């Protein structure tokens, strides 16, 4: 059974063009780019090309691109570098809805003498810039805010937030893992100092990431070692993955319009149809300022894990913010921060599409999902009385 893969915010397939470009660098052109011989030197040229391509996607210059192993490493490198570059500043500003790579790191730093402000979001998952402004202090070493949320797709006003940090000489980092390749980004026009991206979210392989570091920004390496990446990140370059990421960046740029027209169209059709067919259903998060590929839909009175496993029987892949799937006993921190009621939070399903999804796949989900919800609601002790209450209301 070929999966209907609608979980692209978790990870994506490696694009065929990316895989093809990578293959020679495993077994034929395996030289070390740092070597003096031309066998290694030719690989260096390809690494350079990849760096140019990534820089072009971000609107950055090539020397501002540092290859890392993943988004989490980039996040760690950015935040830790800011703290060690400004040792007198002990305050971090972030949000309640960050990815664990930032959230858990900040929680860890809070036990190491740093003060962390986690900005709240409203019921639509939006940030209040006034509240943000008030959180910035002379003691603030760094702001780290995600560009787009992985669960809801809600986009934060990152350019504006970065500008406000710059006015106060505070470093600004953004985890842009979900937004790079999906929405246009031109870092040259912004005040963003550091940005994290992850290869496997944009059809490059797992195990490759990038930290963008604005020219002139103080930096202290996270991984100390050789002279690679201009001494900013030790370790022999993962040449096949870097080259793959270069191709993926170029593809993403070419397909940006397609993503924001066709993929967005698929997402909207899925969302609107499900909402109109299935009662007691709601979209989580701001539907206007949102990634084109993501929708988080809550089905009242059912539990997300059941929905996922029943969809799994048809090969439909999605994810949920429910407690049962989160590995903890509470629903996702993002939905809780938004104040989504329990009746809704436990039954939330995230569909995240990619340029490889088709109209047929969306039709298939629209056909299979409503009966699943009906079956599970038929089993739910809350369903009848819940529906009753809604009618009365």
């Amino acid at each position, binding site marked *: 059974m070929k999966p209907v893969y609608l979980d692209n915010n978790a990870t994506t397939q490696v694009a065929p063009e990316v895989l093809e470009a990578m293959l020679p660098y495993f077994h034929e052109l395996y030289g070390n780019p740092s070597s003096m011989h031309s066998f290694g030197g030719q690989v260096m040229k390809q690494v350079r090309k990849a760096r140019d391509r990534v820089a072009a996607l971000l609107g950055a210059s090539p020397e501002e691109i540092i290859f890392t192993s993943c988004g989490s490493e980039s996040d760690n490198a950015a935040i830790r570098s800011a703290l060690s570059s400004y040792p007198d500043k002990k305050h971090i500003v972030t949000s309640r809805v960050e990815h664990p790579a930032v959230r858990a790191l900040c929680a860890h730093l809070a036990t190491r003498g740093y003060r962390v402000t986690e900005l709240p979001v409203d019921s639509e998952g939006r940030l209040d810039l006034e509240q943000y402004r008030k959180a910035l202090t002379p003691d603030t070493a760094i702001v780290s805010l995600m560009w787009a949320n992985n669960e809801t797709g809600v986009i934060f006003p990152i350019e504006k937030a970065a500008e406000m940090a710059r006015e106060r000489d505070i470093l600004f980092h953004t985890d842009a893992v979900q937004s790079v390749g999906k929405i246009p980004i031109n870092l040259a026009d912004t005040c963003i100092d550091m940005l994290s991206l992850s290869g496997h979210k944009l059809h490059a392989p797992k195990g490759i990431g990038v930290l963008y570091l604005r020219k002139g920004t103080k930096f202290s390496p996270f991984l100390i070692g050789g002279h690679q990446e201009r001494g900013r990140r030790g370790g022999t370059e993962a040449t096949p993955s870097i080259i793959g990421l270069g191709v993926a960046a170029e593809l993403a740029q070419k397909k940006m319009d397609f993503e924001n027209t066709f993929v967005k169209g698929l997402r909207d059709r899925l969302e609107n149809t499900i909402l109109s067919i299935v009662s007691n259903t709601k979209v989580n998060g701001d539907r206007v300022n949102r990634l084109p590929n993501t929708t988080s839909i809550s089905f009242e009175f059912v*539990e997300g894990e059941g929905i996922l*496993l029943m969809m799994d029987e048809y090969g439909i892949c999605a994810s949920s913010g429910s407690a049962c799937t989160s*590995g903890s006993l509470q629903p996702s921190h993002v939905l809780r921060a938004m104040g989504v009621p329990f009746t809704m939070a436990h039954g939330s399903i995230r569909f995240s599409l990619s340029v490889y999804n088709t109209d047929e796949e969306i039709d298939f989900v629209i056909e299979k999902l409503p009966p699943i919800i009906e079956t599970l609601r038929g089993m*739910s002790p809350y369903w009848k009385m819940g529906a009753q209450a809604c009618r009365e209301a």
Partner: protein
Amino acid sequence: MWDYTDKVKEHFLNPRNVGEIEDADGVAEVGSIACGDALKFTFKLDENGRIKDAKFKTFGCASAIASASAMTEMIKGMTVEEASKVTNQDIANYLGGLPQEKMHCSVLGREALERAITYYKGAPIKAEEEKIVCECFGVTEKEIERAIRENRLTSVEEVTNYTKAGGGCGNCHPLIQEIIDRVVSQIGETPFERPKLSNIRKIKMIEETLEREIRPALKHDGGDIELVDVVGNRVLVATRGACASCQASNQTLKNFVEVKLRELVLPELVVEEVSA
């Protein structure tokens, strides 16, 4: 993805006895939507006092649905007395086991069964008088004590897996630890050294491993081994036959018997030879 057994998946996809009995003899509602799982359970007795029908409705994950389905299947045909002896472990076993983090689903099933029986007997349910330990999930001290006792739990994490208590804000962790310490000392086990296996289970597993894995190999060389005693993690054995007079038997004990036992029973085991 959870590692569910085929039986859990089967009961989730084809749950038995979904619904509600109108004129039920026993009725119970446990859990809440805020906590993420809830179960409504009803049963009806026949003229001989045996459970003729049982039905459930569940809001919860796959293992909650499967646990309720399993529980209703298990108790059909039982007397109320027999059904009252069903434990959460029985429900989990019926399903071929549940992931540790999901054991609370089997506890929810047992709770519903127990409350429905209490309802049938006409005894009052005094839930509101019980002391709540975990505010996030509304878990009472009694429920925690019972889970510790019945499942020989020794850590806060395990208590969370079985009862959900402590799975939210975490403020009650010290309180849960106190309850563990108290109950564990009551049932006569040291609170700090966590025996993953009860002694009886451990000895049984050692015997089985000797029988299945070790004896046949030794017998092949004309030797044999006998389990004399198990003291803590010391496995006291006596060698027999060719082994008893073999110069290399010490090597065999360490490199073969001990390695096997550590692999299959418990990594802390030490094999010692005694004359018996």
